């Protein structure tokens, strides 16, 4: 932009007014993700889970549950998400049950380490 078109200077900032034909401003419809599902590409993601107290008819208890929007695509998207590790685990004869117990041991070991 030529300096002759500057309409104001504030500090080091120069301000121009663009003629209408210079740029077409397109305002897309505003969307809000708060507390709702967001679509990012083809992947389902989630926003703002929160805990909620509800009465559970089956147990007769007031229980605290995680309140998150549900989406069946989440099952599809997580099926086989660790498939690339299956062969390696198979070669070590590690079952999912073993993985859980190994993670327990690791966390217990880490808990016993003195903090810095």
């Amino acid at each position, binding site marked *: 932009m030529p300096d002759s078109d500057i309409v104001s200077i504030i500090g080091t900032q120069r301000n121009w007014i663009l003629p209408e034909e210079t740029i077409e401003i397109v305002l897309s419809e505003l969307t809000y993700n708060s507390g709702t599902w967001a679509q990012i590409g083809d992947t*389902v*993601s989630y926003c703002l889970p929160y805990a909620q107290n509800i009465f559970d008819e089956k147990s007769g*208890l007031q229980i605290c549950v995680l309140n*998150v929007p549900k989406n069946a695509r989440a099952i599809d998207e*997580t099926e086989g998400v660790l498939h690339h590790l*299956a062969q390696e685990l198979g070669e070590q004869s590690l079952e*999912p049950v073993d993985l859980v117990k190994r*993670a327990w041991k690791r966390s217990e070991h880490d808990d016993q380490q003195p903090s810095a």
Partner: protein
Amino acid sequence: MTSSPQLRLYIDTNIFLDHFLRRRGKSSILFREIANGRFAGVTSHFTLSELTGVLKELRVPHADIGRIMGQVQAFPNVQIVFHDQNMFLDMPQNILDTCVQCRDALHFMIAKSLAADRIVTRDSGFKNAVDSIIQCVTPEQLIP
């Protein structure tokens, strides 16, 4: 005509891992059957904690762990329950005596408090400890 009541299933951590690893068996089918309303699924935040621990152990990148855990929470018809101290007030003596791992006892007490009809697991040690109180089954036993 009345429909049979929906079985409430407590889903153990290893069933989610089956699904992630796409192992043989019917764990993934079970989640779809739960989503379709054939069964009602429940699990606890201990399960989320264990899944996170396993994914970290397997060196899955943190961002991916966050994404996967978010998706698990979104599984339809699977309620994720936080424990309450009252759930642990009457832990049966035989569970205290036989649960090898205290975390098994935590899963069991939440399943019992929630009046789960079955615990879905492949952990034979867990099954041996609690089967006399809540029947433990594999996905294949539920979906022949």
